[in-house]
């Protein structure tokens, strides 16, 4: 009986996932892609959706099979889960891409920037795009690389989806956000698109941090590398490495900076804290130094004092009664 219920529940979930495997709680409630969009995009996906594609070569008068290089493959599934899932490819790219071979001058196509659409627009005001851009302009990535480093480098135009704001499970957010940094900091080819410098090894650079793997799953890179900013949800001002947080007590203390960064979002919503200092963190784990329990603290203090008191009384009595 139980398994039957479980099975039917499972199939219900699967059915729901199949019919709408798209996050539904975006604040802007970005809708689902229309039939029309999917139809139009199918042309592009027929070549850009996977490794193998075919085209007709009129000179040879036959179908040619070819491989798409990895960088030009757009993952269809991820695209239709991304923030811009309702877009036609040619909403951002030139409509001339519909022809193949793509016209040579498209190589010099101008790309939109985020704020071409989102800047100074009330619909998007609560995301503070303008302020994020200012922050980004001050960051190492921007100041060192100027034009070449755009928002798209972190916000993959075909895959990025808003996470921190909506995701319930903080661990998923952390993994997602750190994955963004690691697309370059763990990939020489992408890194060296921007600089000729040798790519530092992230693991080695952080070997001073004990439990490195634990830290990297429990905090985001930006916790240590971005300047705190209460005005925006996700701090974007990545500072030079000299300014990165190295002092453990910045996090492992009762006024942990995590409360202003990683937990800034949940801090505002009230939660059961069970007497823990910085209780919001306790839902994810226990950060030594930052999560002390009020009740345990008081209790342990009283037991400690009580022990000392009994010992004191006992030794005074001994001194009085047992004179040598």
């Amino acid at each position, binding site marked *: 009986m139980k398994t039957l219920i479980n099975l039917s529940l499972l199939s219900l979930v699967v059915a729901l996932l199949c019919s709408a495997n798209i996050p539904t709680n975006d604040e802007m409630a970005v809708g689902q892609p229309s039939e029309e969009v999917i139809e139009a995009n199918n042309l592009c996906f027929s070549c850009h959706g996977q490794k193998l594609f075919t085209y007709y070569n009129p000179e040879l008068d036959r179908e040619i099979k070819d491989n798409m290089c990895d960088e030009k493959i757009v993952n269809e599934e991820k695209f239709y889960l991304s923030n811009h899932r309702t877009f036609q490819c040619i909403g951002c790219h030139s409509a001339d891409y519909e022809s193949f071979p793509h016209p040579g001058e498209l190589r010099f196509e101008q790309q939109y920037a985020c704020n071409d659409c989102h800047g100074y627009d009330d619909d998007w005001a609560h995301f503070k795009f303008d302020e994020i851009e200012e922050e980004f302009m001050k960051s190492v990535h921007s100041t060192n690389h100027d034009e070449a480093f755009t928002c798209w480098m972190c916000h993959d135009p075909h895959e990025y989806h808003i996470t921190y704001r909506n995701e319930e499970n903080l*661990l998923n957010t952390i993994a997602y956000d750190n994955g963004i940094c690691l697309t370059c900091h763990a990939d020489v080819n992408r890194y060296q698109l921007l600089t000729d410098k040798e790519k530092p090894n992230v693991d080695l650079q952080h070997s001073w941090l*004990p*439990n490195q*793997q*634990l830290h990297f799953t429990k905090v985001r890179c930006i916790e240590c590398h971005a300047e705190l900013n209460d005005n925006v949800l996700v701090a974007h001002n990545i500072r030079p490495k000299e300014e990165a947080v190295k*002092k*453990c*007590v910045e996090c*492992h*203390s*009762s006024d942990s900076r995590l409360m202003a960064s990683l937990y800034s979002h949940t801090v505002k919503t009230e939660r059961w804290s069970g007497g823990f200092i910085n209780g919001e963190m*306790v*839902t*994810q*784990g*226990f950060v*030594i*130094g930052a*999560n*002390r*329990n009020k009740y*345990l603290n008081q209790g*342990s203090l009283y*037991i*400690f004092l009580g*022990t*000392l008191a009994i*010992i004191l009384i*006992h*030794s005074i*009595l*001994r001194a009085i*009664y*047992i004179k040598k």
Partner: protein
Amino acid sequence: MGTRIYLYPGWLRFWHAINALMCLVLIVSGLSMQYTDFERYILDFQLAVQLHNIAGVILSFNYFIFLFGNLFTPNGRQYFLFRRGVLKNLFTQLHYYTLGIFRKEATPFPITTENKFNPIQRTAYVLVGYVATIIVIVTGWAYLFPEIVPNTIGNVSGLLINDLIHISMGYFISIFLIIHIYFITIGNSKMKNFKSMVTGWHE
């Protein structure tokens, strides 16, 4: 005066010396990690973490001496807790500590080779030696390798539970230590028991 009996064999004294030292390091470094707001007054956090890890590992390996020593030598028998009349004996000893001692009564359980602990001592040593220490060692190693801790136990983070158990047991051992040190000063002379633990001989 009195007879000399050999109570503490060499391996036990060795284990105990290392154990006591490591416990003190662990307590000081553990407190520094927990109360980082007073960092300036105790140890630097990073140093505390390192010391705590090293001392914890040493204490763990050292623990095998205690375990095997008591498993394979007669000393282990001293720790058999559930003897006839445990409860009654516990109260007898409690009565002695709270009243008898001031009336200069004789100790109800004088030290012999077969029975070097009084009932309260025995209970405390079993709780600390065989329960608290094991728990603190296991949760400590789980801290070192957090991958092995389940992410959630029920609704609660596994690490949270692990950490709370670890810290509570550490606290329990610290309280034990205070009482332990106080009790060994009870005797004919304050330093007598310390001496026994160094030489092995009880007078």
